[in-house]
């Protein structure tokens, strides 16, 4: 039996019933990493010893008849921007090389509390800025479906790990599509929760008002389980919302009858590949045949999403990344004459080109005399974008269906020299972050050359249950999610 091909639910059940030991499961995934990660390069750090220790502890609890958590013995990969006590956390950047956090992110504590076994840290675009992992200062992760292509980004390592069977589950973070776009490129379910649903404490900040942590899984039930574990109010994150967390699996009843699905015309426009459009529209038809009501809707401010996002996200980033100055942790230059020299040289050596560019854009947008024209204007646009969505929900729409990305996974190096083309690959996903609403990507078909195509669902704040229910119903009627990358 190839344990690494099983879903998280299957693994959890086998472990709980002591059909297989947590240790055996962990060993199987470590072996799988050993076998394929040389090609995929999903992991930055593999914490094999810690993983085995955690798994052994789960086995001891089970042997002693003690209660175990819902993820007992289930391996998980963590994006390398989630702080892990005692384990280097690089954020894909040279500037954080050697940074070993003295604390766990809240989601990491929650995972460990649920019995999950962390396998290690997954690669990402530096500071989550990018859509391909090509901006990682360490190496580029490959798409398990086609090793010449990118896995998407910025959570490309997390997505590739799950798609390659190196982990049944992974956590990523999503500031403008960084979970959903790699989920689409790798044929997975990826959820960007409502802003405030999951604590950001311990997530190395990119853009604080847009960042959310969310799950990757090979199917909806697994994603729902992982989301149930990580969601909830955290007194350490003032922006996390005090609202009870449901078991997101409970609503997965396969029933979409009567749900009103909106298809926003602006998301099926120029720039979206025909095969992607076709696959998504086919999925919409399928959902309609399952009893959902489908209607075309309009989100008129969609054209302002990208420009507003590329002011606000860099503005916040320019401030969030100011702390990397070489004084307290991470990279420190040698031979600086004074503190200004220390800051300048450390940051020049430590940050990559994309990060520097965004820091400069953000710094400019916040500067005296430009603030009103850029930052303030972008905030106003953000309000209008939020109103677009609010009007949709007000009119009775339960969820919106769109493509996740304009195309299937592109080739490594294909867009690396074209920053605008790279940023356009986020065109469908940015709006959910700007509006703070939940969104999900799932596989809705494959291209002729066997690459996954992603469908995106977006809903009102805290409608994760509805989105997961729709995705699950779609999954029951299709078998895309059962396909495995040819590794």
């Amino acid at each position, binding site marked *: 039996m190839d344990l690494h091909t099983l879903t998280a639910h299957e693994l959890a059940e086998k472990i709980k019933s002591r059909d297989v030991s947590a240790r055996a499961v962990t060993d199987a995934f470590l072996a799988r990493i050993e076998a394929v990660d040389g090609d995929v390069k999903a992991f930055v750090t593999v914490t094999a010893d810690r993983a085995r220790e955690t798994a052994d502890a789960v086995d001891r609890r089970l042997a002693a008849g003690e209660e175990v958590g819902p993820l007992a013995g289930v391996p998980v990969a963590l994006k390398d921007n989630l702080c892990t006590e005692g384990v280097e956390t690089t954020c894909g950047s040279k500037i954080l090389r050697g940074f070993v956090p003295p604390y766990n992110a809240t989601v990491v504590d929650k995972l460990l509390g649920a019995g999950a076994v962390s396998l290690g840290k997954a690669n990402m675009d530096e500071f989550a800025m990018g859509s391909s992992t090509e901006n990682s200062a360490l190496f580029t992760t490959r798409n398990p479906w086609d090793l010449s292509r990118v896995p998407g980004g910025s959570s490309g390592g997390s997505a590739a790990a799950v798609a390659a069977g190196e982990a049944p589950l992974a956590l990523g973070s999503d500031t403008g599509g960084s979970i959903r776009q790699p989920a689409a490129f790798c044929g997975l379910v990826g959820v960007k929760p409502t802003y405030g649903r999951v604590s950001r404490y311990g997530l190395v900040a990119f853009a604080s008002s847009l960042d959310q942590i969310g799950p990757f899984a090979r199917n909806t039930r697994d994603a729902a389980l992982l989301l149930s574990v990580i969601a909830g109010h955290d007194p350490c994150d003032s922006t996390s919302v005090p609202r009870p967390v449901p078991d997101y699996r409970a609503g997965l009843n396969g029933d979409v009858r009567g749900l009103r699905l909106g298809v926003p015309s602006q998301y099926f426009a120029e720039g979206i590949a025909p095969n992607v459009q076709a696959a998504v529209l086919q999925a919409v038809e399928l959902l309609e045949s399952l009893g959902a009501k489908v209607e075309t809707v309009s989100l008129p401010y969609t054209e302002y999403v990208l420009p507003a996002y590329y002011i606000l996200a860099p503005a916040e980033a320019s401030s969030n990344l100011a702390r990397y100055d070489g004084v307290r942790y991470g990279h420190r230059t040698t031979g600086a004459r004074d503190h200004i020299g220390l800051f300048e040289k450390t940051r020049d050596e430590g940050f990559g080109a994309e990060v520097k560019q965004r820091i400069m854009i953000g710094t400019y947008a*916040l500067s005296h005399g430009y603030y009103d024209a850029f930052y303030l204007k972008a905030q106003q646009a953000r309000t209008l974008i939020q109103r677009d969505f609010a009007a949709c929900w007000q009119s009775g729409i339960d969820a919106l269906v769109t493509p996740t990305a304009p195309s299937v996974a592109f080739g490594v190096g294909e867009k690396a020299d074209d920053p605008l083309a790279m940023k356009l690959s986020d065109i469908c996903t940015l709006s959910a972050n700007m509006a703070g609403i939940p969104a999900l990507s799932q596989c809705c078909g494959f291209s002729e050359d066997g690459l996954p195509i992603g469908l995106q669902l977006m809903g009102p704040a805290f409608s994760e249950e509805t989105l997961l229910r729709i995705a699950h119903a779609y999954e029951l009627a299709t078998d895309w999610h059962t396909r495995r990358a040819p590794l």
Partner: protein
Amino acid sequence: MPEYETRVGMECHAELLTESKMFCGCRNEFGGEPNSRTCPVCLGLPGSLPVMNKKAVEHVVRTALALNCTISLHSIFHRKNYFYPDLPKGYQISQYGNTPIGTNGWLEIERADGTTKRIRITRVHLEEDTGKLIHSDGAGYSVVDYNRSGVPLMEIVTDFPPDIESAEEARLYAETLRSVLLYLQVSDGKMEQGSLRAEPNPSVRPVGSDTFGVKTELKNLNSFRSVQRGIEYEAKRQIEVIEGGGRVVQETRGWDDDKGVSFSQRSKEVEQEYRYFPEPDLIPLDFDVKWLDSLRESLPELPNEKKRRLAEQYGLPASDAAQLVLERETADFFEAAAKGAKDPKAIANWMLGDLARLANAESVPVHATQVTPGALAGMVGLIESGAITGKIAKSVLEEMVATGKTAAQVVEEKGLTVSGADEVAGIVANVVAANPDVVAKIKAGNDKSIGFLVGQVMKESKGRAKPDDVNRLLKDEIAKQ
């Protein structure tokens, strides 16, 4: 040379008295082993997030109310971005723009001549303190202590154009403000430890000019005296620069208290670019009107009110009342001692005179010696009843401060009660007998010479005789001769 006038804007920072720091659970204390009170949040480690300290917010709201401010019902925080090694996040969480917690207040000061003046306050806001850079002289490096990083800090800024027109008014403003903070128990007001920092912005202009001069900002003033001296020096320096044909440079200047001079620290000619923007990691403060009302109602009696009441209720001169109310505990001590006293003014005199001197010698506030309010009242009572003289009382009080005993105990133990009339009469007889020449002079009409005999009697009685008794008995005795 034209006549010049001085205007002073004041920026004051007060570290707030809270159990923990502003955004984390680290203890808020002064000093200690460097970096012993730090955590991921106040070290600005990647991934850490701030959580607002509610007590700090309450302290600022209460202060703003006490300073007659309008309270913003909706108040937000901003990031003030700049690079410095003592600033671990690369930005300070502060309040910028139109919605600080308090706006448009005032504080009344009383000048030495008893006249009062309102100093308008433009804003009262909440922010976090930075760490401390420690330079190693000549060793080529500096180290940073982040114990102070994230300590809640309140900023109080006077309005423009400045109402403060002299160095003395600036000192009075700072002193009065400190009193208010102490009464509210929101700050310990220790200027020498930097928990209260006054940064005056003095400028000068020829009288009659309708524009204001270029201001400089004074730092490192760690006493009220240095606030006054620093401004006096700076105003004089600015006038000399202008009269010498130069122009005053907008800059930050440090104050060297030993040398009594200010020196240039940092130019402010180029406006600093702080790239303020709303702090996305904190949610806005939305105040409930009922909560504000309850805070307003629970404000203690403030120094100015107390001063007026003490003067009126106890018949004190305004200057005594002003002295007594500087610290709340001093005023409380006075009221406890004056309660039921025949002559409250005598209590105030003793407190502001001998007791203050003795307390000062022990480096404690007047209310913190071993003398209790009751013991001081008891001592004044002994004087009033004639049991001891004022002169004896001075040494009694000294003993009380040293030992914590009551006046009655000291008098009893040392046998300091006033000598009986018989005993005094005996001494008087002896003195008169021993000084026939002086007696002769007095009899010849030289009344002043009686002073010598009084002195002799007091000396013999070791001060325990009442001067009135001595005078009367001497006259009787001389008349007998």
